[in-house]
């Protein structure tokens, strides 16, 4: 564990996608769990280099999409056929083909709203503050610099060893982060 009490983790800066890709492979292979890479754009294949699992998001969207779809076709049938039955245009009360457009749009609506909110909720955003924001160098993360941060709570974390690992992987800058 950490030697300093007021230590959140270590931040290391890399200069390009290639460097961070190689560094992530090393951190992954060293067996770290609580660490992250921050990049200005999704670097192709970096999720594999970090050993990340696929996102759960599609399953949530599928569930809510099916729910929304089923809800709308049932609602339309109930509203048109049972709640206030009126014959319009000579169509039967349960006129499924005429229900399709709204049914379809509702499916899209439920799925997309779910995808939108799940994305932020699963990612723990909005989160106004993060320890990395304390670093001046980290302001370039949304521009052209690439970062790895390892949290002090990681069982493998050792300030000197972790720093040496990140440095050895080609970091151009290594900083300690406070919470």
């Amino acid at each position, binding site marked *: 564990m950490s030697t300093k009490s007021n230590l959140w983790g270590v931040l290391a800066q890399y200069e390009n996608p*290639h460097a961070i890709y190689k560094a992530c492979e090393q951190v992954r292979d060293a067996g770290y769990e609580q660490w992250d890479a921050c990049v200005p754009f999704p670097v192709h294949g970096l999720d594999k280099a970090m050993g990340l699992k696929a996102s759960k*998001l599609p399953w949530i*969207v599928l569930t809510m999409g099916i729910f929304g779809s089923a809800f709308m076709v049932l609602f339309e049938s109930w509203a048109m056929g049972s709640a206030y039955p009126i014959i319009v245009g000579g169509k039967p009360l349960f006129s499924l083909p005429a229900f399709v457009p709204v049914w379809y749009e509702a499916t899209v609506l439920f799925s*997309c709203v779910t*995808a939108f909110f799940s994305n932020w909720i699963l990612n723990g955003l909005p989160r106004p503050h993060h320890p990395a924001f304390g670093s001046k160098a980290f302001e370039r993360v949304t521009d*052209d610099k690439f970062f790895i941060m390892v949290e002090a709570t990681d069982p493998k974390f050792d300030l000197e060893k972790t720093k040496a690992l990140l440095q050895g992987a080609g970091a151009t800058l290594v900083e300690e982060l406070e919470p």
Partner: protein
Amino acid sequence: MITGTADTLPDDPKIRGDVVLPDPTHGREALVRGTHDFHSITEMVCRVNEAPLKATPKPFLFGLALAASLLAMFGGYIGYLLWEGPGIWGNNNPVGWAWDIVNFVFWVGIGHAGTLISAILYLFRQKWRTSINRYAEAMTIFAVIAASSCVALHTGRVWMDYYLFPLPNQMGLWPNFRSPLEWDVFAVNTYFLVSLLFWFTGLVPDFATLRDRATVRWRQVFYGALSLGWRGSMRHWVTYEKAYQILAAFSAPLVLSVHTIVSFDFAVSQLPGWHTTIFPPYFVAGAVFSGFAMVQTLMIPARHWLGLKDLVTAKHIENINKIILVTGSLVGYAYAMEFFVAAYSGNDYEGFTFLNRMGGPYWWAYWTMISCNVLTPQLFWFRKIRTSATWSFVLAFFVNIGMWFERFVITVTSLHRDALVSSWDYFVPVTEIFYLLGTFGLFFTLFLLFIRFFPVIAISEVKSVMPQANPHWEGYEHGEHHAAATASAGGH
């Protein structure tokens, strides 16, 4: 990505983007011109937003003032409309639908290009879309707002508009889900909301860029709030990209469905000239056609004034013009097919309606439509014309005019000759021109504010399609062997 001709490009970024390169013999043309790294892309795009408020260019302020005064006029016009009712329009019996619906369909159609670029081209891995998708999406959203203002105000008793939505009410009555007009409510509202969510999702990483670069307090707060604390975490990107893909995958059929449903407003009725099965594909092609014309109209001046020619190059203009050519030809085919079907059906009313379009009292609208929509885009067969910014701007302008007239022709000429000669009438607009100008004011006010405060290019997406974004790019492998100073200095 191989570019054999990039060496011959001039150094001046003002003209570099306009150079037309010969098609490479293999591989594709580089998407970004000039020697840009990630940082210079950020600089190029953010410069537009980061100019101090007092240093806003005068022509921009003039444009904004003009658009805002049109918007203010629109506000007054809406008040007048609410006070007097739709009697201030020239609508009569039988022409119950006129400019209100014409403007609505015109604006909704324009929106479709944005979604096509952001969704369909994304799913087809068309990487050139990254430098035009942001403002095409913005255009979509503002166009749908303009469209909604037309359709929400045309109902007559505007305060009853909540009946359009399935809300529990005092009569225990639900909207008629079998009606195309109700389908339209769902289609347009879903379209607006999904486009907005999609647009915002794409904007968040770029808002974070502006936040991290902000030097003034209000910018830090403004972009800080909008960026939701985005920090580019790869763990976030994984979920984010999945969400983005799903939004794209749903938006793609949404593009087709929305204008299909708009066409149902006409096609499900029994009116000759409207009641045709060709309407859905014909409307979708027309929507994409008009939308891409509007993209050209907005993009060509913007890339010039904002200094973005390295990102939006002659290649982009050419690609868009090719889509305009294809969809324009589809629209021309649909016009011809309508006549064929009317003749082939042997139905007198159908035949009369179409002959009346061509030679009746609204012949001028029909021929404006044909010359702008069918003849104009055919000029894009010439490479000189379709790669020229000036030509593209002028021709796209004609397409915009033509597509407004298309909706006028469909709506008004089909209605003004009713089944009985005694009910025939001629529609003349009264105050409608202010309605149309007002929607333009609304659209351009929003669009100019967007250009000033939001990143007009998807910064992170453009970076991700640059060759050096690939961790296995040959430049890095090369640098590794020769221990280049920039790449992985500590090496292994």
